[in-house]
């Protein structure tokens, strides 16, 4: 009996100690509104985001932004959908380009346009091509954030050493073939001329740059897509271009996925690969990894046809519609903060993603970067010169991930000898089936 009596006191004492602590924590949180921010950035991107949150929190005393890393893009989409409406859901979240249509139709976010209109936020300072990707019906769904574009990289030092004329900044397929062939012959096969990763994103860009729509209803911009076209003059020419380079032995195939990217970069940095096409987001890694001079051009276009421009890649920021008004307002303040000219310039310098605020280019941090590496300016120039239209604003369709898997497989088949028509027909049928199923399952008419 005595023991129980003592325990009772012990419990009470503990409670008395713990309770005020909890209350303290509560009052501290109550003074600032918590803005949970989900993102999927690693490395320098994550560091910079933490820095943004810190600066934003220091700049005002109403809101407290808490950045939380949520794994890969794909995993994050599923988490966003499945936590929506619960206390675990974020106030503001980053979600990848190809999830845009899915999140839009799932109605998990307050359209960005609402905040823009309310505050008369000047959207014209933000890149129009990037905005177009995340708009529907002229309204901004989400705010473009980390943005890259595919560009063509070449080893300028190798070209110089071998006495090869550099490709023009806006090259056609045959311009690149000429350089690739020269690299391979003049190095006696020691340096491979060219690679193009088996990658659905690049496949989409071959179409965008040829002014072609992948899905009907103008890539889903005028209605929900019901049919896709993958076998077009643009894709035919692009695939024939790759095949001709494979045939002449100037091309090296690194396959698909992360390993292909790390392999092509390793080979490029080691001076064993002359040219490759890849996201502009790799620029910092490439500049840091080699003493060789880096050359960059725009995405190659069809022979004798002007480039229509390529779409962006990356991710955008969304504000969840399941949180109270003041939380949403705080999230919007944070979005404005990271879209400022200064923040965007810092972002580009730190990560290689492109600054989307047009006033960022004049910021000292970027001016300094361009002075040191003139080529670093090329991706921003490519982004700035593109006139947004429905063919180069991305495919607004659910199942773009499936599209990427299928086109990636088609590219692998073509690179390994399957006739172009056959490989594209298989992918087209697979995707049409998937689109039909998605529309049926979600009751889209």
């Amino acid at each position, binding site marked *: 009996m005595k023991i129980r009596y003592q325990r009772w006191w012990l419990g009470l004492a503990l409670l008395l100690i713990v309770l005020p602590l909890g209350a303290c924590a509560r009052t501290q949180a109550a003074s600032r509104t918590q803005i949970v921010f989900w993102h999927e950035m690693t490395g320098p991107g994550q560091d910079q985001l933490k820095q943004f949150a810190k600066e934003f929190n220091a700049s005002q005393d109403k809101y407290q932004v808490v950045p939380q890393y949520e794994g890969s893009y794909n995993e994050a989409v599923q988490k966003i959908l499945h936590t929506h409406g619960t206390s675990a859901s974020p106030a503001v979240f980053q979600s990848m380009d190809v999830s845009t249509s*899915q999140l839009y139709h799932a109605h998990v976010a307050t359209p960005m346009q609402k905040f823009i209109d309310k505050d008369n936020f000047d959207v014209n300072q933000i890149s129009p091509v990037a905005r177009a990707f995340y708009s529907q019906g002229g309204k901004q769904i989400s705010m473009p954030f980390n943005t890259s574009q595919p560009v063509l990289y070449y080893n300028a030092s190798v070209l110089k050493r071998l006495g090869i004329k550099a490709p023009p900044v806006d090259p056609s397929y045959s311009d690149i073939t000429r350089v690739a062939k020269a690299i391979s012959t003049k190095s006696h096969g020691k340096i491979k001329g060219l690679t193009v990763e088996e990658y659905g994103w690049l496949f989409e860009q071959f179409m965008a740059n040829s002014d072609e729509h992948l899905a009907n209803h103008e890539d889903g911009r005028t209605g929900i897509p019901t049919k896709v076209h993958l076998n077009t003059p643009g894709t035919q020419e692009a695939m024939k271009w790759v095949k001709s380079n494979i045939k002449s032995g100037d091309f090296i195939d690194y*396959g698909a996925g992360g390993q292909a990217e790390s392999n092509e970069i390793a080979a490029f940095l080691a001076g064993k690969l002359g040219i490759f096409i890849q996201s502009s987001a790799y620029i910092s890694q490439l500049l840091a990894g080699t003493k060789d001079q880096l050359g960059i051009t725009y995405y190659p276009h069809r022979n004798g046809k002007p480039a229509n421009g390529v779409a962006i890649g990356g991710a955008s920021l969304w504000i969840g519609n399941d949180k109270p008004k003041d939380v949403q307002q705080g999230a919007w303040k944070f979005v404005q903060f990271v879209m400022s000219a200064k923040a965007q310039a810092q972002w580009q310098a730190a990560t290689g993603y492109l600054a989307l605020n047009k006033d960022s280019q004049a910021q000292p941090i970027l001016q300094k970067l361009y002075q040191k590496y003139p080529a670093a300016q090329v991706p921003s120039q490519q982004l700035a010169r593109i006139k947004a239209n429905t063919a180069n604003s991305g495919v607004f369709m659910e199942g773009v991930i499936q599209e990427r898997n299928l086109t990636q497989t088609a590219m692998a088949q073509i690179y390994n000898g399957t006739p172009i028509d056959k490989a594209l027909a298989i992918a087209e049928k697979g995707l049409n089936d998937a689109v039909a199923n998605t529309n049926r399952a979600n009751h889209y008419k």
Partner: protein
Amino acid sequence: MLESLPKHTNPEEPSKELVPVGLNSATEWRKDRLYVALFLGPSLLILSVFVFWPMLKTMYLSLFLTDNFGHASVFVGFSNYLNLFKNPAYLSSLGATFVYVIAVSILTIILGMVLAVVAQQHLKGIRFFRTLFSSTMGISVSVAAIFWLFAFNPSVGVFAQISQALHLPEINWLADPHFALLAIIMTTVWMNLGFTFLILFGALQQLPSSLFEAAEIAGVSKTAQFFKISLPLISPTLFFVLIVTLIEAFKSFGLIDLMTVGGPNNATNLLVYRVYQDAFLNGNYGLASTESVILTAIIAAITLIQFKLLGKRVSY
């Protein structure tokens, strides 16, 4: 695991579990039931929440198309199943999985056995090699993947450099559909080897030396000793290793995700990886559930066949 098999109980002695002793009154019977509920209850509860319910739900979802949130939305009966068996990409995944599983199991066991026999020899410094042989057990999948990715790199990798030096044709291991599966098989076998080696080596070490001394005196050759004495005696262990390796091979995921992401041209898109792709990349939970049910059925069937066919030949 093997100790718990029923064959270990002595058939002369009637099993105590079957005849309840001392349950002569109704209260005691009730008390006993209470104990049964208390002991089994928690595990049954946990199993039903984390195993049975998800299994049933998976079977249920496999009959539906699922919407953006993963909810069942349109009932389609067995058409998910039918579509899969008409899909050439799925059929090639199925084929690749069988090739992979069989190759991995056989190679792992043969090589593990060879290493175990080698490690049994009383040679100088053999302890070092014993540690070395089992060392892959301590290597995580991601580290192994990075290591092999470097080795397979067609420009700067070890294999490329060897073939360049010897003027052999260059093989693009991970990007060529003819070699990618082989590359993954090699990597998996290498990964599995440590575990298999350790188990088989342990089994060999436990065999009584008197048997081999007797065989030695009778003039039985070393080879015959291995095949006629060692192998039959460690057959339960071999059986265990075979089942574990086989099931593990069916479930292979990490190396594929890190090295080939199922490519090139679906050559390494094994069944488990396809389930992951359809569920967590494509968000197509209905189809992914269908694929899971099929995979479960295949693994169950193969395990049953193994018990039926091999179980008889194993001497415990």
